[in-house]
């Protein structure tokens, strides 16, 4: 099939309206949430059903053309960046909620359903815990691909802990079900391998999610400290006491200043750190633990602990926290959002190290993070109008990841590798590790058509399966097939 034939075939599949060929239309999709990378695809399709997705992928397979799946394009690692000469498969029309089964705690959705819409569909008694800050726009398909997290993940877990089944279009155009509505389908846990695979193993077209009952009670406080070290020690003390908060989020002085200007929550500008702690669960247990958390914060040096009195105040605390990224625009013309992880106990030392690096580079780094799981989001501020500053800022952001790795951490906690962090993969993984990743990728996509150029540090080919697959005698005898 040549290029023209592919276009005509895709047109037949999705219809004229949902096939985009114009440079002007395609510009909408040239970047995801990470704007420094841009690439216009050769064309984009917006299929309206899972079957149309399958036909689009099958057409690409026949034409030997690479493709990229895209949800809402809110990704922060360039995961949905189109490939030149490739097809972009946009899933934003697949927004049906297919089943809500609360007796079994399950929801089945199409991939273009937004994260927030899942919780809405099961409200008021149930909710879907993984809650990325982008939840109003980002899609479940994107969440599955990135294994997205959010503020409540320390207690509740990540996307991967909530997906029980998927329908996936493989790069050869076959539709397969992995996992299911039930747990523990015997066989390899392909579900676990697929979640977090960043669109490189296939397109998820149907997703079964586990939802859980809304906790009986929620208690929220914000405690202010003189330094992030003090706040970090409070975090350790809380967790060490056996308390598992629903969320535990930290902001440093720069972030407090920036967010206060935007959210007007009455936070004391000038303080070293703010710690937002939310406990949820059974009322009695929550109350008992809340008293203890308040005491620990005071013991660790906080003289200003504010307990939310009502839902409005709780919402204000959260608004302030979630304003962190946009608010940074008020104190700096540009910034990079970094995403690294360190073991929680190393937080205080790592923060000192980041401050030293910021001083060395003459740039400001604001810190806001999911403190419970050691997931840092340093915001590296710069002014693109000043020559060379963007490059310096990018280098500094990379140095911060080196610090995370030296502390025993990871180069990404939730935003994924995408294109942006490929260059750091080889620092975290050895050649044999990367080769094992490639084995998985080749099992799903031997021809390398699904989101090529993402995740792996250098492009790799699959080749034939090396060696001869030896059959077990039973299998050869045709008996094992019955297993």
């Amino acid at each position, binding site marked *: 099939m040549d290029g023209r034939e592919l276009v005509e075939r895709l047109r037949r599949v999705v219809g004229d309206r949902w096939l985009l060929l114009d440079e002007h239309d395609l510009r909408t999709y040239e970047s995801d949430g990470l704007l420094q990378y841009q690439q216009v695809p050769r064309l984009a399709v917006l299929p309206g059903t899972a079957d149309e997705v399958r036909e689009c992928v099958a057409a690409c397979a026949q034409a030997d053309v690479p493709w990229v799946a895209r949800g809402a394009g809110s990704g922060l690692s360039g995961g949905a960046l189109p490939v030149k000469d490739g097809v972009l498969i946009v899933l934003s029309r697949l927004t049906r909620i297919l089943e809500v089964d609360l007796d*079994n705690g399950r929801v089945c959705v199409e991939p273009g359903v937004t994260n927030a819409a899942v919780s809405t569909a099961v409200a008021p008694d149930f909710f879907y815990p993984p809650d990325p800050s982008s939840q109003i726009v980002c899609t479940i398909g994107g969440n599955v691909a990135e294994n997205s997290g959010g503020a409540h993940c320390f207690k509740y877990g990540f996307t*991967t802990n909530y997906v029980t089944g998927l329908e996936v279009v493989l790069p050869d155009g076959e539709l*397969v079900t*992995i996992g299911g509505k*039930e*747990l*523990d*389908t015997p*066989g*390899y*846990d*392909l*579900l676990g*391998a697929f979640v*977090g695979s960043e669109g490189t193993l296939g397109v998820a077209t149907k997703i079964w999610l586990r939802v*859980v009952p809304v*906790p009986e009670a929620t208690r929220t406080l914000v405690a202010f400290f003189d330094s992030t070290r003090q706040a970090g020690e409070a975090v*350790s003390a809380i967790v060490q006491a056996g308390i*598992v908060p629903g969320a535990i989020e930290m902001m440093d002085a720069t972030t407090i200043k920036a967010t206060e200007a935007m959210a007007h929550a009455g936070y004391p500008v000038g303080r070293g750190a703010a710690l937002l702690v939310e406990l949820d669960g*059974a009322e*009695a*247990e929550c109350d*008992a633990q809340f008293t203890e958390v308040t005491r620990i914060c005071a013991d660790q040096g906080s003289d200003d602990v504010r307990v939310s009195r009502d839902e409005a105040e709780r919402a204000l605390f959260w608004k302030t926290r979630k304003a962190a990224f946009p608010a940074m625009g008020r104190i700096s013309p540009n910034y990079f959002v970094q995403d690294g*992880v360190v*073991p929680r*106990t190393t937080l205080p030392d790592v923060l000192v190290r980041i401050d030293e690096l910021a001083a060395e580079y003459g740039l400001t780094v604001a810190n806001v993070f999911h403190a419970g*799981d*050691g997931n840092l989001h340093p915001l590296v501020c710069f002014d693109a109008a000043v020559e060379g500053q963007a490059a310096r800022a990018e280098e500094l952001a990379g140095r911060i990841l080196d610090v995370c790795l030296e502390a*025993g951490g*990871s*180069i*990404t*906690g939730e935003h994924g*590798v995408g294109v942006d962090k490929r260059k750091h*993969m080889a620092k*975290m*993984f*050895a050649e044999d*590790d990367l*080769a*094992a*990743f490639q*084995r*998985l990728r080749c*099992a*799903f996509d031997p021809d390398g058509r699904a989101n090529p150029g993402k*995740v792996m540090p250098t492009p790799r080919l699959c080749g034939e*399966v*090396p*060696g001869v*697959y030896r*059959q*077990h005698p*039973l*299998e050869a005898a045709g*008996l*094992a*097939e*019955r*297993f």
Partner: protein
Amino acid sequence: MTTISPGSDEEAAAALKELQGATVRPSGNGSRAEWGGKDSDKAVTVHTGGLNRIVAHNPGDFTAIVQAGVPLADLQRHLAREGQWLALDPPDRGGTVGGLVATADSGPARHRYGGVRDLVIGITVVLSDGSVARSGGTVIKNVAGYDLGKLFAGSYGTLGLVTQVALRLHPLPAGTATLVASTADPAALSRAVLAMSRHPLEAMSLDVSWREDAGRLLVRFGGVTAAERAGHAAKLLQDVDTDVVLDDESIWAAQRAAQRGAAVVKVSALPTDLSAVIAAAGDATVISRAALGVSWLSFPPGDNLAERVEAARKALEPRKTAVLDGARLVDAPWPVADPGTLALMRRVKARFDPTGTFRPGTYVGGI
């Protein structure tokens, strides 16, 4: 039958390079040895007894790095000194951490803390070509690279040898209490399960047992207010007799033990299937992680064991069932897999173990 016992990743890698062309069976202590089908008589056993170090325990980070041959019980004893545990409590007959990961076995704590797949944060494996590969890391949140820990969890030694895992730990609960609800009516038991699972109880465990026409729902609470919460939950139930037990360890030990037997069928179903599972069980004891829909039918020894097992499996169709204990009794311990999914699993096997070294022919679909 040859057995080798490497003492390090490097030794394991060297041994696998040596063994090119042989059939290999990884082995812990053999507590689940017959699960997942019979190996070839010529298989070389690679025993993990020499990989028996707790490499690191970081109490402040609630993580540990453990070699595959460490017995689970030893690990738990070690962690308990710091008030922590690996929140996996399968019926334990001396099994190793590697065997637990390879079989993805679980116990009552699965309800709250998830299974093996949810608690392994990093893994080291030796593949049949002797390469040593790691995925994940040692932090509880991490999305760099593919998650091979989940792929190897429950792979029954058919993809490679697991030599080391990094694990997420949890605090031991400050106290526990168990709500016990009894009834001889499966429908009432099912209603009680749904009443409990639709409430935000934050229970540690939510199990059912059914034996000789007597059903029990067991809901375990942890924390300083455990007893109060168990009492509170009891008020949500109707048509069942309730009791709150404070000294509840023996209840749960019995529940775990009953998950093993002369023959055990594991059932993947939904919580609303409980009555159907009970109806299909025949003379087996039913142990169910009721809010998860996963059940174990544990058959007593005696005549016609294989027939009793197969009758239950047939009655449960199209639900997927696997025979664990007593696998040798039946022709096909694994259920029939969906053809498309099976083809994909075969491709995964062919990439990770192209020489078919690890336990060929023993897994789902004859993989």
